[in-house]
């Protein structure tokens, strides 16, 4: 298909190079010296005013990390990361923690306004009732502001930065931190345990249905910094929460590291819905720059009848290494994973999930849609396992890949391990391109090639789109369009 003029123009407008969130905010910041040592770990802990046990926890993780080697099993190629050439702590230099929005640096607020993140509560309140979202905004290493706290606290919901939680609710943090992703879990999680600077903390008390969507917006701003945030989300018995996470970063030539950990605990009858739109800077069209995204996300369905649902839209990052997982420990618990991973340019995605069935009558569902274009590599890697005691476990997995262009790759690597005969697992995967029949059908009805592809791709990912909260659905459809348009024609 020769590129039509329209395409060329559109591509010019929304090229990978034209990453919309690629601006840099000139803001004074405070950084720890480059490199990693016990001193840096102590420095971060001291900066946060953490209790002694937390420092010990970090130091233990640090010492263990020193003995670990980087995992190399993923289908990713990148030059070795020099962990000594990074800043492990960067914070915008504002006085002490802001008490209200008025004290927040206006530059920062402007940044979030540019990103379209409503931090000013009034602005949100003025909007449609029901579309309210409480936001915890994390800028480089620190949380700058958390909105709607008062209203949330009326319901007994704790939503704050994790540093604050460590000060205000140390008993909760101590009880749950590292209980899903232990400090020794894997190379990147251990690094995160040693140096994590901020992130969000959520606690939903028993029987409470969180009245609004909770959201974190992460932004990497500083040069050469790694961002290591840690999110801990606890849904007590019978509670419900929907949590959104979004990420962006400025355009830079060098690669930046992002190694986050997200832990979710769902107790009896609790339900957590965790949605991510990951749109870190993917690098330019020559593959220069971009975020290295090494993330450990895991949910523990600890109580009976609990449910954790992961929905992710991955369009950004030069490298994505991410496997949001569910440990289905409680009887009748349920895990879900819905994913759209779009890769274009030189992006490399190795993502998937793990569903570990331990309890009786646990069920899980995996729907993964990978779309590879340009010279990108897009891998689904997933594990479904049933423990010997997981009687009646059920899984359904569907992973479909769509290839656009003949220089990209789409790969599927499922591990299906059944140790219980009553476990019933079904897995299916397909890889194909947009068929000529489909194109013909659409173009014959007067759609341009461009429109036809957009329509077909939208249909391809529809099953996952449906599971996104409304706020993200609109953003996602746009993002997919932006991520792919350079590849069509």
């Amino acid at each position, binding site marked *: 298909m020769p590129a039509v003029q329209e395409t060329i123009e559109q591509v010019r407008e929304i090229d990978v190079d034209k990453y919309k969130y690629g601006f840099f905010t000139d803001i004074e910041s405070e950084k720890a010296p480059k490199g990693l040592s016990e001193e840096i770990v102590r420095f971060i802990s001291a900066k946060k005013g953490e209790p002694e046990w937390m420092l010990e926890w970090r130091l233990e993780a640090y010492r263990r990390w020193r003995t670990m080697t980087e995992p190399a*099993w993923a289908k990713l190629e990148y030059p070795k990361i020099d962990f000594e050439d990074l800043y492990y702590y960067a914070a915008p230099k504002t006085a002490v923690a802001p008490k209200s929005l008025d004290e927040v640096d206006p530059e920062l607020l402007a940044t979030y306004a540019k990103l379209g993140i409503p931090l000013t509560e009034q602005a949100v309140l003025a909007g449609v009732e029901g579309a309210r979202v409480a936001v915890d905004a994390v800028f480089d290493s620190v949380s700058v502001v958390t909105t709607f706290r008062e209203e949330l606290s009326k319901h007994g919901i704790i939503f704050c930065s994790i540093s604050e939680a460590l000060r205000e609710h140390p008993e909760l943090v101590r009880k749950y931190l590292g209980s899903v992703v232990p400090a020794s879990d894997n190379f990147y999680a251990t690094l995160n345990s040693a140096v994590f600077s901020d992130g969000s903390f959520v606690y939903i008390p028993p029987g409470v249905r969180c009245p609004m969507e909770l959201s974190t917006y992460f932004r990497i701003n500083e040069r050469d910094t790694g961002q290591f945030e840690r999110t801990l989300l606890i849904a007590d018995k019978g509670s419900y929460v929907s949590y959104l996470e979004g990420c962006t970063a400025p355009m830079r030539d060098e690669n930046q590291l992002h190694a986050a950990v997200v832990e979710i605990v769902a107790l009896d009858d609790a339900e957590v819905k965790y949605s991510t739109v990951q749109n870190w800077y993917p690098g330019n069209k020559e593959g220069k720059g971009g975020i290295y995204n090494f993330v450990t996300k895991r949910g523990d369905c600890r109580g009976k009848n609990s449910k954790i649902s992961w929905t992710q839209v991955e369009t950004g990052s030069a490298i994505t290494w991410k496997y949001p997982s569910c440990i289905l420990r409680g009887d009748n618990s349920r895990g879900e994973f819905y994913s759209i991973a779009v890769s274009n340019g030189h992006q490399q995605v190795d993502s998937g999930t793990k569903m570990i069935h331990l309890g009786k009558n646990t069920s899980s569902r995996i729907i993964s849609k990978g779309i590879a274009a340009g010279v990108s590599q897009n891998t689904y890697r997933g594990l479904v396992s049933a423990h010997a005691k997981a009687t009646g476990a059920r899984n359904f997995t569907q992973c479909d890949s769509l290839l*656009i262009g*003949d220089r*990209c790759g789409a790969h599927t690597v499922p591990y299906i391990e059944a140790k219980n005969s009553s476990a019933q697992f079904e*897995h299916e995967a397909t890889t194909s391109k947009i068929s000529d029949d489909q194109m013909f059908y659409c173009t014959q009805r007067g759609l341009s090639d461009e429109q036809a592809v957009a329509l077909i791709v939208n249909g391809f990912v529809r099953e996952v789109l449906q599971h996104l909260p409304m706020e993200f659905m609109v953003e996602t459809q746009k993002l997919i369009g932006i991520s792919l348009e350079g590849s069509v024609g």
Partner: protein
Amino acid sequence: MVGDTGMNVEVRNKQTAAEQAASDQFAAVSGSLPGTDAVAATRAAAIRRFTEAGLPHRRIEEWKYTDLRGALRELPAPAVASDTPIGPDTLGEIDAWRIVIVDGGEPRLPDGLAGQGITVERLSEVLAAGVLEAEWPEGTPSAMLDLNTAFVASGVTLRVPEGVHVDKPIHIACVTTVPDAASIYLRNSVEVGAGGSVTVAETFEGPDGIAYVVNTATRVTVARDAQATWVKVQRDGNKAVHMATLASDVGQGGRLTLAPYTTGAALSRNQFAIAFAGEHAEANLAGVHLLCDRQLGDTTLFVDHALPHGTSKELFKSVLDDEARGVFQGKIIVRQDAQKVDGRMMTQSLMLSERAEADNKPELEIYADNVQCGHGATSGRIDEDLLFYLRARGIPELAAKALLIEAFVGEAVTAIGNEAIGEALSELTHEWVSRHSHQEPGS
């Protein structure tokens, strides 16, 4: 693919007893192994590679489910060839050209095979001519093959000339009769000339209760427009370890069917690789695992589509009873130039007991956009609805179960496309099922 993952690069641990035994045995017997100086050099290089790499273990991705290093405690010395005249039990009833190899001794060839125009050479003759292949295609793991290259002395090489259709199957019966633990190394190969066709059935059987080790390497070459079916029936003894490496390539318009049927050995590993050497070629795999007790059966397949218009179809069925473990790993790679490839893989496990384990890893690695590839994997126990349907029609529970298991396996057996062999395998399935269809596990 072995050797390209960073995980293989790690500090070697102390040599295991089996690894040490391999070096010691080689030092002891290398002087008496058949072959020219060139062959001896190839053998020496192979054992060096083996000593450096050691036995594969679970830290190597391809061996994640089968820890050969941990499982193979001892490597018995190469068997002393036996002259006992013995015929095979397995597929013994089918009308075939029968080649019998007992305990890794010289193959006994049937009369009249040459009349078919086929060339049959014993491996010892091939080695005397200075030929011992050590470099196999990508996807063929080296550790087991290196061990085979170092010690192998027996096997047959079949050549089917252009346009020749062999009238009945060629049966290579590998029978083990050793009274004590021993290692048996075999290497069989078949080359089918352009437009020719042949069906080969390789069978393995041996005594229960003896910890012998079979290490076999097989090459199947299918030329342009030729057809080959390679059936491998493994019924080794219940204490045996069976390791098989098979590499094949299919020429333009050629068709290859591989049919591994595994019921024997305490631990077995089939490592098969299929490469496409021409366009419009077709490769099929129809495999079966029937495992019980504490057996571990591992079939690992690597299909490499490097050329356009290829078709590959895989159907793999595992029936697992007691504490058996069935492993199927299948990787289809479609390279950038291999447009219009059609690849389909299906793996299904039926678990008859609470404590059985099924591990499936069907992989797709695709670099060409104009392809249709898919895989499916299921595992579970006998469908209660089907059982109910049959019982409602007056079929007793055990008979109904047996019927369902046989039908489940039958799908793969039928896919082999040879009636006589299909019938014989169905009979083997029937026998196995009769022994293993019992009351609801745990009840």
